[in-house]
């Protein structure tokens, strides 16, 4: 079954070519009516319907093999089957349809075809494969640059969090993540890296070069155990060099680049193309209209963009005793642009936080010296960029450990003067070793 | 055939390029004449000037590199298409990150942008060196209204032939007296100034405001000329006077009043940064600076011709060294902050003085900030560094001295016995304390010698002995005493200077070789003054350690070169030891000098209308404002020179114009705000807030406390108590506390006579925009900030004036209603309105009741203050008591607990009137 599945990528190109050829013939037939043409249209249409069915079946085999899932797969799957069904029906009913509905049928067929084709491609080559190498001006129009690139000196880059994890996210996590452990190996987090997978630990201290991770990477491309598997996007040389460099230093999870010796090649790689996952550059939103910022100001909300050319917004409501729901509603006008809110010593409550948590791009959230309670943290769980959370001098306690652990993107968490027990804090430290807790480094 | 002929003709025409017409300008000529100098001044610095460091990989020396482009990978120049050329896009500064040159100050002018665009669109030709030289032979080249001018020669050759926009050089061209544009106005029924202003408003046809009411007019004129509000009698006298020339008589009366000099001297002292102390770390008192302040007041009162006023301030000692007035006048040259101590490097403090005096002469008399040309040729005006150092050479032989100058009969040298005696008492207390400590040390030394059986030697003698044969330093003194001793010797320095204040010396200068003395002691003119006059060099980057080439004393070369033969001043400045300043002063005050008279006329106009014809009185250059009415300015200037530089004559001329007498409200506000928001065309009279000094003097005048005595030693009014006792750090010690003068008569004088410390400003004056004393102030700003409220609403000054005035009203009038009507008339200069009277009476009732139940606390003045500081040497904190001798014998102003409840209530009402907008604004 797997064997046949592997032919899907090969077979599926046939119906695409055939269907388009049929359409072309139909066009020519339309201008210069001739019986022969009409006949050949039918033949080619039949052929493409047949091959579409086979491609669909192989596709289903391939999907069982695993390694794909998620929304992209579903769309690809149903549109693919749709092409097969539609082309066969069209083949049988063509002679009975009047001239307009013929064109309608062609339209339907071709749209389904393009959908299936596009999503199939992004499954194999990653979402942005279409635009990745587009010339600059196209890329500019489609992905808006916000703010000039922040000059980050490599020395403040966390080796695991900012270099290795982004590579894993791009090249490995599609098969090795929390809910789909290919070879029972989960590479989504420091702790799971350490655990390793079915064939043992990834790192071998005595003999670094022979470590399982490097071994699998260096296997020849078509070797069955080569990682990432053939057909998936391969590691580029600089990524391999970085992983090797990381392992040479004992696969550390709490080190900064400046803590490791980096040879000139590594420094060159870091400077040129490796930016840590900096949400400020990843979030792309349109700027909010100035009138909204003025409206904020008029209602006593201090609001300004993080830099003159950036659409991202910081909000300061520190010291404001009554945070009425009117203020929260007002803030929603810029919910995508708001990346930082300072509620220090304000009247913010748990259910206010429910609303705030719906702001998708929040990176900094200051709740210190307020009377939010343990339930508050739960609301924040699906903030995918939340890196800095400050809850010092609040009544938060060990009860919130689980919720806090769920915030996997967190890089700094300030718990001073809260009801957290020292064991609770130790637990947190163990689970998230490189989380900044406001203790002296 | 004919078509080919025409075609050939066109080619030829195009090839040689007829100069002058912009649109068919030959790009090659454009490159040779204009583009090369733009690149040289704006680009080559970072792109090719230093071959080792080429920014952004873009080298403006080689054309191919520009076509390919630098690190950005985009071509800098796309011949024929400026839109695509990155060079053109970046100099347009549309995208902030790309903007070139990086600094806003260096951005290219409109015309330069146009040139680069035309050049690139014309194919961006880059002819060879020879071709450029050939093109440059055509000397009549002119692009737009830009011209080339000759100066004494810039440091760099490209600066030398830099083009200037003609309208930026307006101030350097000689004054031409223009015709008065009467238009259809009848000359004998209209005023020349109104004709010029009407001409200015012609195309925009803005309606003008009606005339101000007589009431508003007398308040405006009185405060404008003497800095004090009109009294009730003066107002009633003026309103009642039916004589058609009543207005002229009012002006003449005010111009004749001595208080006119006190008001208008103040504007001049803003420009020259008058202060009674030297600033920096010791802020030494300048004992005789006050005589220069009185000289300026007398000059305005006597209507001394302005050119003579300038001559005396620049070269009074060279005009007549025996006339004290002349020596006093040269105080101008030493007004800037300056100090030389053992800690400072002599060469640097000397250079600091020369830079300061050159710049103040430039700003005050030539309306040109010269310090821009200190480090390099001026970036905008035709002033080469060579001119800057030539003018500086005029002052190379100027040295400092406190020259003996007997007091003049007009000078007020009164001082109370108490004030003089207290300084002598202080001196001997300090000497006694110092001797006590010295003896204590000597006793310890004596004991030290006896223990070792050596013969005792006094301190001076034993200093040379090797270490083991003399007692350890400061033996016998505790660290606390050590610190206190330093305080004593600093206090002695200060007291000696305060004593010198009463001696007849002038804060003056003399000509001689360089002689830099510690500013702690008084300098006299040395006997032998022979020796080579010090030479002056052009300094690279303005650093005294990097001379380039020597220069002789000289003037602003552009003025000489722009003047036609008939108007050239050509006065040669002597280069010997003597009369350099006299020569320069003669050049400056020569009637053909285009700037001096214009600069003063512009200042007079500015203080009448709130805004100069050129809005930057200290800067007539390219970066300053352009005159809104250039012909009017020149006409006024010719009138000023024709009337023997009389300032009072200018007041009469300006104040009798209708424009000066417009009301401050306008018939059609929307139109004027839309067309002329800054009221540059003066279609109505600009309201203004009273200056800091005017506010303080007006309250003293209204309350009847003002002692109108003129001139004399600086007085010390009451200032905020906490600021007064605030310790002021002077070089390792603390300056004595500020204590007001002992009696009300001494303290309550006009504010121009208050002692001005550079390190302690009167908070009341500072918060109402009294300018600092470091930089010349061309025009005061008028900000509205919260501390003004704290000062007026809570401050002691307003409370005391209100109390004294209330008390006077209680005695002179009966019935609260009459009193508050009198107060409203005196403070707002109008009759009280019925609704007002009713509200104020209601307020008085409530307040009287409140005061009956609440007795004010009795407050006494502190008689000593404890000082605490870290002793510099040991870092140990030590404290000492400082006796406040004046407060011990102080005669305070009237205090709240000395009057009854209804007087205190009336005082509160008056304080409200002083805080109101109607009092502090002049319409």
């Amino acid at each position, binding site marked *: 079954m797997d064997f046949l599945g592997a032919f899907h990528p090969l077979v599926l190109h046939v119906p695409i070519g055939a269907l388009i050829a049929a359409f072309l013939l139909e066009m020519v037939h339309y201008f210069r009516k001739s019986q022969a043409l009409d006949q050949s249209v039918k033949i080619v249409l039949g052929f493409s319907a047949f091959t579409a069915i086979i491609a669909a079946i192989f596709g289903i085999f391939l999907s069982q093999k695993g390694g794909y899932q998620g929304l992209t797969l579903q769309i690809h799957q149903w549109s693919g089957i749709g092409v097969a069904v539609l082309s066969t029906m069209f083949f049988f009913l063509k002679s009975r349809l009047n001239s307009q509905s013929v064109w309608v049928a062609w339209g339907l067929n071709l749209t389904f075809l393009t959908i299936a084709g596009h999503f199939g491609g992004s499954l194999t080559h990653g979402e942005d494969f279409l635009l990745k190498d587009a010339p600059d001006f196209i890329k500019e129009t489609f992905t808006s640059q916000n703010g000039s690139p922040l000059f980050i000196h490599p020395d403040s880059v966390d080796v695991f969090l900012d270099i290795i994890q982004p590579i894993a996210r791009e090249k490995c996590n599609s098969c090795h993540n929390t809910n789909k452990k290919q070879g029972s190996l989960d590479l989504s987090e420091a702790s799971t890296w350490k655990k390793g997978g079915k064939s043992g630990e990834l790192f071998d201290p005595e003999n670094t070069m022979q470590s399982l991770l490097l071994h699998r990477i260096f296997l020849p491309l078509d070797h069955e155990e080569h990682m990432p598997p053939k057909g998936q996007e391969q590691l580029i040389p600089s990524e391999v060099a970085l992983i090797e460099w990381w392992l040479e230093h004992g696969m550390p999870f709490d080190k900064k680049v400046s803590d490791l010796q980096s040879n000139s090649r590594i420094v060159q790689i870091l400077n040129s193309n490796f930016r840590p996952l900096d949400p400020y550059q990843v979030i792309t939103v349109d700027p909010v209209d100035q009138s909204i910022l003025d409206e904020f100001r008029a209602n006593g909300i201090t609001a300004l963009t993080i830099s003159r050319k950036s659409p991202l917004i910081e909000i300061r409501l520190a*010291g404001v005793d009554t945070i009425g729901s009117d203020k929260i509603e007002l803030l929603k006008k810029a919910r995508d642009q708001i990346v930082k809110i300072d509620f220090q010593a304000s009247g913010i409550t748990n259910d206010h936080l429910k609303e705030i948590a719906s702001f998708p791009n929040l990176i900094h959230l200051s709740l210190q010296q307020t009377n939010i309670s343990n339930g508050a943290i739960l609301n924040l769980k699906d903030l995918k960029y939340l890196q800095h959370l400050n809850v010092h001098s609040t009544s938060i306690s060990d009860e919130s450990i689980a919720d806090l652990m769920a915030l996997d993107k967190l890089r700094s968490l300030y718990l001073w003067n809260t009801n957290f027990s020292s064991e609770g804090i130790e637990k947190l430290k163990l689970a998230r070793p490189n989380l900044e807790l406001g203790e002296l480094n | 055939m004919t078509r080919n002929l025409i075609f050939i003709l066109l080619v030829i025409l195009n090839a040689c390029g007829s100069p002058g017409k912009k649109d068919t300008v030959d790009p090659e000529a454009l490159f040779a004449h204009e583009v090369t100098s733009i690149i040289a001044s704006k680009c080559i610095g970072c792109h090719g000037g230093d071959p080792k460091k080429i920014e952004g990989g873009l080298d403006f020396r080689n054309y191919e590199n520009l076509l390919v482009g630098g690190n950005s990978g985009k071509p800098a120049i796309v011949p024929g298409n400026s839109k695509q050329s990155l060079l053109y896009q970046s100099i347009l500064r549309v995208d902030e990150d790309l903007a070139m040159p990086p*600094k806003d100050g260096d951005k290219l002018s409109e015309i330069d942008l146009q040139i680069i665009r035309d050049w690139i669109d014309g194919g961006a030709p880059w002819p060879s060196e020879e071709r450029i030289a050939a093109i440059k032979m055509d000397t009549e080249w002119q692009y737009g209204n830009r011209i080339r001018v000759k100066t004494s020669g810039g440091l760099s050759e490209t600066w030398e032939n830099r083009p200037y926009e003609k309208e930026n050089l307006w101030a350097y061209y000689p004054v031409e007296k223009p015709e008065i544009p009467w238009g259809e106005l009848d000359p004998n029924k209209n005023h020349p100034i109104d004709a010029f202003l009407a001409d200015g408003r012609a195309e925009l046809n803005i309606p003008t405001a009606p005339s101000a009411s007589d009431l508003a007019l007398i308040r405006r004129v009185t405060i404008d000329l003497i800095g004090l509000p009109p009294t009730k009698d003066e107002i009633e006298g003026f309103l009642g006077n039916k004589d058609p020339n009543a207005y002229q008589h009012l002006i003449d009366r005010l111009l004749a009043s001595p208080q006119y000099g006190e008001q208008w001297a103040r504007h001049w002292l803003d420009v020259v940064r008058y202060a009674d102390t030297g600033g920096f*770390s010791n802020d030494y008192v300048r004992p005789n600076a006050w005589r220069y302040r009185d000289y300026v007041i007398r000059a305005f009162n006597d209507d001394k011709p302005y050119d003579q006023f300038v001559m005396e301030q620049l070269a009074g000692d060279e005009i007549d060294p025996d006339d004290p007035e002349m020596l006093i006048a040269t105080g101008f040259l030493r007004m800037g902050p300056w100090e030389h101590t053992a*800690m400072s490097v002599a060469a640097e403090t000397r250079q600091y003085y020369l830079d300061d005096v050159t710049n103040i002469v430039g700003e005050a008399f030539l309306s040109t900030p010269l310090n821009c040309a200190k480090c390099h040729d001026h970036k905008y005006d035709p002033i080469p560094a060579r001119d800057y150092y030539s003018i500086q050479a005029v002052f190379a032989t100027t040295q400092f001295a406190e020259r003996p100058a007997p007091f003049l009969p007009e000078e007020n040298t009164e001082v109370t016995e108490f004030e003089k005696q207290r300084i002598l008492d202080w001196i001997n207390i300090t000497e006694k304390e110092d001797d006590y400590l010295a003896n204590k040390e000597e006793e310890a030394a004596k004991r030290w010698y006896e223990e070792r059986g050596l013969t005792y030697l006094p301190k001076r003698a034993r200093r040379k002995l090797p270490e083991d044969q003399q007692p350890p330093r400061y033996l016998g003194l505790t660290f606390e005493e050590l610190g206190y001793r330093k305080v004593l010797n600093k206090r002695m320095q200060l007291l000696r200077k305060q004593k010198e204040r009463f001696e007849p010396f002038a804060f003056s200068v003399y000509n001689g070789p360089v002689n830099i003395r510690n500013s702690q002691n008084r300098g006299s003119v040395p006997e032998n003054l022979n020796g080579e006059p010090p030479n002056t060099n052009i300094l690279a980057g303005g650093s005294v350690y990097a001379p380039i080439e020597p220069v002789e004393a000289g003037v602003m070369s552009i003025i000489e070169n722009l003047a036609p033969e008939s108007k050239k001043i050509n006065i040669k400045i002597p280069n010997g030891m003597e009369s350099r300043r006299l020569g320069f002063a003669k050049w400056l005050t020569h009637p053909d000098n285009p700037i001096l008279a214009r600069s003063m006329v512009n200042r007079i106009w500015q203080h009448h209308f709130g805004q100069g014809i050129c809005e930057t009185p200290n800067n007539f250059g390219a970066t300053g404002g352009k005159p809104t009415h250039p012909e009017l300015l020149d006409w006024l200037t010719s009138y000023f020179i024709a009337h023997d530089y009389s300032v009072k004559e200018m007041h009469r001329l300006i104040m009798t114009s209708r424009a000066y007498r417009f009301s401050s409200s306008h018939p059609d506000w929307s139109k004027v705000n839309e067309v002329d928001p800054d009221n540059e065309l003066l279609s109505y009279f600009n309201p203004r807030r009273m200056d800091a000094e005017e506010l303080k003097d007006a309250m003293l005048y209204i309350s009847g406390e003002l002692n109108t005595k003129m001139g004399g030693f600086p007085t010390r009014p009451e200032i905020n108590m906490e*600021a007064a006792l605030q310790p002021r750090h002077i070089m390792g010690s603390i300056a004595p506390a500020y204590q007001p003068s002992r009696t009300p008569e001494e303290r309550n004088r006009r504010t121009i006579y208050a002692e001005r410390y550079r390190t302690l400003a009167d908070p009341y004056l500072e918060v109402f925009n009294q300018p600092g004393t470091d930089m010349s102030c061309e025009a005061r700003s008028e900000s509205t900030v919260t501390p003004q*409220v704290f000062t007026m609403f*809570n401050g002691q000054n307003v409370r005391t004036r209100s109390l004294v005035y209330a008390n006077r009203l209680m005695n002179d009038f009966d019935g609260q209603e009459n009193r508050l009507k009198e107060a409203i008339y005196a403070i707002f200069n109008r009759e009280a309105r019925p609704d007002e009277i009713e509200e104020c009476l209601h307020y008085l009732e409530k307040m009287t009741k409140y005061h009956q139940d609440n007795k004010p*606390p009795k407050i006494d003045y502190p008689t000593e203050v404890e000082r605490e500081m870290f002793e510099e040497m040991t870092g140990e904190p030590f404290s000492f008591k400082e006796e406040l001798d004046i407060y011990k014998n102080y005669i305070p102003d009237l205090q709240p607990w000395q009057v009854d409840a209804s007087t205190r209530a009336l005082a509160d009402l008056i304080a409200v009137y002083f805080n109101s907008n109607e009092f502090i604004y002049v319409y």
Partner: protein
Amino acid sequence: MSTDHTNWNRRDFLYGLGSSIGAVALSSLLACERKTGQLVSKGPLSPSAPMVRARAKYCIFLTMEGGPSHIDTFDPKPQLDKYHLTKFQRQGEKFSAMSSGDRYFVRSPFSSRKVGKSGVDMSEPFVHLADVADEICFYRGCQAESVNHPTAMYHINTGNRFGGEPALGSWISYGLGTMNENLPAFVVLPEVAYPQGGPGNWSNGFLPAHYQGTPLRPEGSPILNINPPPGVSRYHQEESLELLQRLNREHQKMHPYHDELSARIENYELAYRMQMEVPDVIDIEGEDEKTKELYGVGQAETDVFGRKCLLARKLVEQGVRFVQVYSGGWDSHDFLERAHGNLITSIDKPIAGLIKDLKRRGMLDETLIIWSGEFGRTADNGVRENGVAYGRDHNPDAMGMWFAGGGVKAGHIIGATDELGQEAIEIVHPLRDLHVTLLHLFGLDDNKLTYFHGGRHKQLSQFGGQVIKEVIA
């Protein structure tokens, strides 16, 4: 802090710190500056975005007035022990009277050791600062220009040696405004006596009056005249204010187009409200005992400076943009061991407490701390009054400073001075580059942060400089 002002001459009328009036901030509607007629409606102090994303939002500048010796604090010179007391001559036009003539070398009275994981040097009187060594970035390559206290103070504070120009705090408030518009953007906590050069060190120079530094006085009225004079009660003020505003409104009807009138009317409303707000904003008595102890408040040698550091954190926490804290008396020409010893002890615990407190409150990464004097000191001293003075003279060519938080590279030493500490030799930068770097950390470009005055676009660094890249994380 007694709030009884009824009696002027109470015994502890010890001294006042603040003298020149500070321009206390206004709400955005009220501030207006009459500049060529047009009313700046949006308040000059309302917050505005930096040019590029900022690494630091607040600054606490710990200014050690007098010139602390880098040799006896963070840049030890063991070589000097060899040359101790050897004599030599120095002449030259470039030297002041004080630093020419016969000289002799003086070794450091303190031993030094490496501290923290990053192994940075600290002289032994620094006890508490050692705990936070890994948060600090030491910079040794800076050079001043002036040998004289007041001109050197003006230079580091305002970029121009001769005074009259805006201070660093004023430039930053001009560029970014304040995050809390009811508090000044730039606050100064001066020493017992003002530093040399007086209020010129925190002046707004040619910038509008709103950007002037506000000196806060720990005793007496925090801002001059903020409390009504003795005997004037709140009822009293309310009645007067009500009548005043009625008069002003009546007057305004006659001059509807004179726009400053309304600004001045609202000015009185705000001032009245601020009389209550400002005092409790700066009251540190409310802090808990443990925090006070952390800063050394209540202990004799650290109480004064401890209070100021605690107040600095409290002001920054409430949105004040720039706080300058002064410690004076570092000019040790003699008795170096005693003077520097006492002074180091007086600042050691408070500064360490400040860094720990900021870190645990999650404020350190956005708050830039600077510790510096106006110049360094020489390895040699001049012969004075016939004896050996164990002190050092002024040295503009080498000085020691450090930074913490606000985007700097923690736990590093940047640049170096020669082996006797006379001159900076590695990563050497003039003082103006330090200013450009500080502005850069605030997301401001020195070339673009300009103000037109006296005929040119003036900037803090006077004519441009470069960013000291090595210092930035």
